[in-house]
């Protein structure tokens, strides 16, 4: 059974215009999932549905065997699906880092000693243990987002949902956050669902869902998704720049193989080409 399963989820804020339409998807334990789509495609609403922040109008969500339509399992689902939001300033509740990380476990009624251990664990996992007693206002955007991740990790979630968590960060901060998330996925087997419009964040994913106007219109590995160039273009999405360069070189008669998505891949292919002569 998948860790998270959505069956025909439909949702509207105003009961008129559906922002999520008939979305069905499943996520297995340990997977790294990317959800992409233009601004306003319903990506963020999907994150809120996964965590029970909003309830679907119809359809069913199951997380680790708990039924999202059952009122009593709401907290079981929230415990298992942690969400890190976009704005680093608007999700930290406390003025001291360790107090903020403690917030989630406190809400669950975790005993004091155990909370201390969880803070140790969570701050270490995001590499912020040195800042335990600092004030978040003095930290950089990337550091704040790492604290937000730690605050979610302290709930010991199965799934980490990143709702455009890198959109407001500078390249340095983005890299910090992505490194931490990748490490959690690889070393701690945390399932990751990253919602983004940065195409290069999609490349590492095991599976990609493309969302358009509330519907999942494409599903597959990054390679499979990026093959659908025209489809992506019509959806208002763009290929990673390296893939664009590769395509245009091919049009000019450079004999590059298909499926080049990264700088490294393109450089390698070009070097191989040169070696052949």
């Amino acid at each position, binding site marked *: 059974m998948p860790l998270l399963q959505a069956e025909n989820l439909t949702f509207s804020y105003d009961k008129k215009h559906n922002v999520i339409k008939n979305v069905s998807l499943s996520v297995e334990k340990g997977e790294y999932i990317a959800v992409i789509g233009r601004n306003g495609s319903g990506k963020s609403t999907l994150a809120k549905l996964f965590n029970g922040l909003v309830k679907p109008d119809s359809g069913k969500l199951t997380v680790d065997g708990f039924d999202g339509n059952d009122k009593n399992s709401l907290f079981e689902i929230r415990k298992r699906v942690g969400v890190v939001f976009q704005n680093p300033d608007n999700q930290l509740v406390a003025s001291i880092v360790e107090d903020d990380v403690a917030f989630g476990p406190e809400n669950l009624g975790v005993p004091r000693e155990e909370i201390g251990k969880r803070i140790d664990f969570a701050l270490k996992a995001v590499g912020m243990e040195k800042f335990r007693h600092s004030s978040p206002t003095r930290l950089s*955007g990337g550091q704040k987002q790492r604290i937000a991740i730690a605050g979610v990790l302290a709930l010991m979630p199965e799934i980490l949902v990143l709702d455009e968590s890198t959109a407001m960060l500078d390249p340095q901060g983005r890299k910090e956050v992505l490194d931490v998330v990748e490490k959690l996925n690889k070393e701690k087997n945390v399932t990751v669902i990253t919602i983004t419009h940065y195409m290069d964040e999609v490349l590492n994913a095991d599976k990609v869902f493309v969302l358009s106007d509330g519907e999942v219109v494409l599903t597959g590995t990054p390679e499979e998704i990026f093959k659908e160039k025209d489809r992506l273009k019509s959806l208002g999405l763009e290929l990673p720049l*390296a893939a664009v360069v590769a395509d245009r070189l091919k049009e000019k008669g450079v004999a590059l193989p298909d499926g080049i998505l990264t*700088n490294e891949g393109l450089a390698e292919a070009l*070097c191989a080409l040169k070696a052949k002569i």
Partner: protein
Amino acid sequence: MRVESKDLTFIYGEGSKNLSVTALDKVSLTVEEGEFFGIIGQTGSGKTTFVQHLNGLIKVGKDKGSVIVGEYNLSDKKCDFKSLRAKVGMVFQYPEYQLFAETVKDDVAFGLKNFAPNMPEGEREKLVREAVETVGLNYDRIKEKSPFELSGGQKRRVAIAGVIVTKPEVLVLDEPAAGLDPVGKREFIELLHKLHGAFVKTIILVSHDMNLVSENCTRAAIFSHGKIHSVGTPKEIFSRYDELVELGLDLPVTASLTRALKENGIEIDSDLTVDGFIESAAKIFAGEK
């Protein structure tokens, strides 16, 4: 208008012993009229502090160097900052957060009302319409709407219309494409070029996006720790690969490809725009099978 700073220095919290931070350290930089100038550097390198000097939002301190924009000497106490600000427009990060008026029309007109309070209503509305249409929105359809009921992308356009409504000669933009999706970003760049071709003579663009800078700028400056690390054409500054990496900056895709190929003994000489790179690379690789 030419923009020129000489030995510009700025210290936050000057006077207090352990809290003062030198944000700018003797920065001398000239941007000629007509340029599309990029300013890059890590967060905290002084970029924002620098550009906020250019329209007097931050005043030049005593003995802290000078800033001259066109005929305005900003170190001069008698400098007319109000008329300067009408000529040097500034778009902040997430500019939609500065919208406040009841209607789109009023919000866009705000700058005009401040800079030219005696302008006849008809003329004002004509300029407001022009600005809204320049940013690609339908004026008649949205003029009476509240700016807060627009979509995110529309809000940003309205905010920009509110800056360009005075037809500034110099337009300074601080990370203006943040939060836009790829298509939104591309449309935004097109808008910048459109403005640059119209009344805006000089664009100064602060950005973390190296591809954006290498693709669009005539020249750029790299800031690091409040100093200017280097100034030049994208080709000149982005060819200093190792130094950039040392500064914690990314390379544009074209530069990183050029660098990787060079390490393998393949020299590609281009201006580091995507078009330029493809043209040069195609010459070397096309037909080699």
